[in-house]
């Protein structure tokens, strides 16, 4: 008998003739909506991100390019192919290194870059979580991981209040990365150190 059949057989045997369990939806009494308006969402998200030691800025939509430029001036950075052109000031073109699934940068090349700029799919205010889903404006997972500085644009309409609202908007079959602040460790005497293997600096630009 194959391991598969044997294990499935054992599971069936172990369960015996158990009655089917209650469907959890019947028990779903937890919150599925926050009911917060846009101002409240932005305020909460900013508060939570700052708590994680991310640098956060809220700018009008027309000023995103200027905000991005301020963060990336003088740096050589990766940019996913689908990143909106209107968010990238032409003065940065020279140092912008394009990446896509079809023409991926080598890992060592990414390691040599100073920074990366991406958009984002969904942000959850209550937990200060930004989700990347690998869409063309966010790029491959490696580009937002290897460079030491991540500049991330959060369009205001992608902000939701709580975790269930976030997952409701996400497609789990895409490669998802949930980011809540820069990487961190508390492994040495429980003292928190921000920035271990992931980008040590996280800049968030919320575009209203």
């Amino acid at each position: 008998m194959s391991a598969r059949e044997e294990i499935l057989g054992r599971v069936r045997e172990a369960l015996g003739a158990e009655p089917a369990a209650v469907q959890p939806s019947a028990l779903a009494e937890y919150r599925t909506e926050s009911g917060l308006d846009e101002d409240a969402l932005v305020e909460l998200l900013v508060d939570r991100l700052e708590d994680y030691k991310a640098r956060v800025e809220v700018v009008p939509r027309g000023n995103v390019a200027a905000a991005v430029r301020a963060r990336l001036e003088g740096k050589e950075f990766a940019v996913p192919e689908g990143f909106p052109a209107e968010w990238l000031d032409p003065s940065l073109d020279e140092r912008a290194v394009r990446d896509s699934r079809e023409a991926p940068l080598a890992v060592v090349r990414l390691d040599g870059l100073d920074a990366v700029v991406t958009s984002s799919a969904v942000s959850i205010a209550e937990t200060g979580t930004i989700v990347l889903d690998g869409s063309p404006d966010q790029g491959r997972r490696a580009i937002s991981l290897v460079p030491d500085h991540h500049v991330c644009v959060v369009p205001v309409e992608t902000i939701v209040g709580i975790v269930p609202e976030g997952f409701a908007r996400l497609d789990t079959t895409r490669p998802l990365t949930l980011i809540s602040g820069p990487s961190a460790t508390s492994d040495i005497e429980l003292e928190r150190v921000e920035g271990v293997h992931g980008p040590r600096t996280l800049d968030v630009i919320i575009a209203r």
Partner: protein
Amino acid sequence: MSSVSLGIPAVPPRGFGNISAVEPFPQAAHRELGNAQLRENLGHATHTIRDKRLRVVSELPDWQALRDAGSAIKTEAMSRLPELLTQFEEQFTARGGTVHWARDAAEANRIVEGLIRETGSDEVVKVKSMATQEIGLNEYLEERGIAAFETDLAELIVQLGHDKPSHILVPAIHKNRTEIRDIFLREMPDVDPALTDEPRRLAMAARAHLRRKFLSAKVAISGANFGIAEMGTLGVVESEGNGRMCLTLPETLITVMGIEKVLPRAQDLEVFMQLLPRSSTGERMNPYTSLWTGVTPGDGPQNVHVVLLDNGRTRALADRHGRSALHCIRCSACMNVCPVYERTGGHAYGSTYPGPIGAILSPLLTGVEAEENSSLPYASSLCGACFDACPVKINIPEILVHLRGEDVEAKHGRDAGPGGADRAGAKSSGRRRGLPTQMDVALGAASWALSSGDRLGLLEKGLPVARALAGRDGKISRLPGLGAGWTQSRDIPAPPSESFRSWWKKRQKDAPPADGDGSTRGPATGGATSDGATEGEAQ
């Protein structure tokens, strides 16, 4: 597997690997208690994490509803396990991954080794995973010339120090910063000799040490916090980014996941991604969570495998009173609130799974008859703090008591009487019955006495005699026989001159007829409290 299977056994086979205590818990605990540094560090860690957890848990108005939902989803998942595993396999395969099944630790290790060999690589990077620790994968690979590099900072410290984890969340908590610096200076070939013991400097030394490994690794091995049956998605929850490195950069990714980790729907993540981070590190959300579904062309590993591991899980599942231990999401909250764990530390439990959950999970995976784990269900004062803390509401104290019963039955000379008939059958028929021990005799006597008010009354007449045993300070400092162990480290207050029952009878006679309200509060007032209190302190 060379063994020929003669039909499905009545009790699924036990698990193997690092899920067994290497010595009885009391003995190990006794030694670990002598380690003052361990105790101090653990005390600090458990209290700090506990406070953080309480803070972020109290922020959520629907915490209890989330716990109920978490528990219900896990119960549903277990009851639909065959169907969910098959669905997971189908989905994961359809999206470009390969599914393997492993009956036990040895089979899982062999599968992983084979997959690594196929790539031609002789080293792998690893992201903290309890399942691979459980099956002893690192040791297995090392013996066969494949180097496995742990990349979680704490795991790295433990690995470089040739040590064992003492806590599932902060495995190196028993080491101080200076010790960590010394380990790094000794074991990292390229480390700056002027390295100080400042945590930031140490973390940066680890970053530099692992960076080249990450950038050049061809194969990564991970565990998984969840597997979603609906679409074949796997998830890893972490803090440092080492997980993302392993899950993203290498060409080949091999995930070892216990079969109990499967969840029915992607939507279930909305519950567990609230329960887990808050219960575990006491954060609103952990820094990084990665979810991947098979292969994404052009993004991340293109050769993706998952090994579905039994290793005693079906055995635990067959125990209807113990199976909810499989709901565990490994958050470690139960450890951080456990008064026993806080003092003994994780090493005393021997197994990969320490603390209250380990005390039930390890014997459930191996069977409580496995001699080395039979003392684990006693490693608890049954205070219930673990049950309150558990985000998926596993009733650990109840399972502990159940396993103690199983252990007593396995070891001692009572036949499965009429009451034990339902679980006798195949399970206990092969068991050797030992001679009754002192404990059996004592418990037998207790059951004789407690089953009848008259008998108890008769015994209580002996109280004044016991009182005479006590010294002038009113304490009994040495009991004979089995009681000796109890009085070795504590004195028992002398029994009161009168039993509660006889005091109550007298009081009822003396007292004016109670009005309805007062009668329910009766025992809490008057002379009863002092006797009651001393009894409480003896716990």
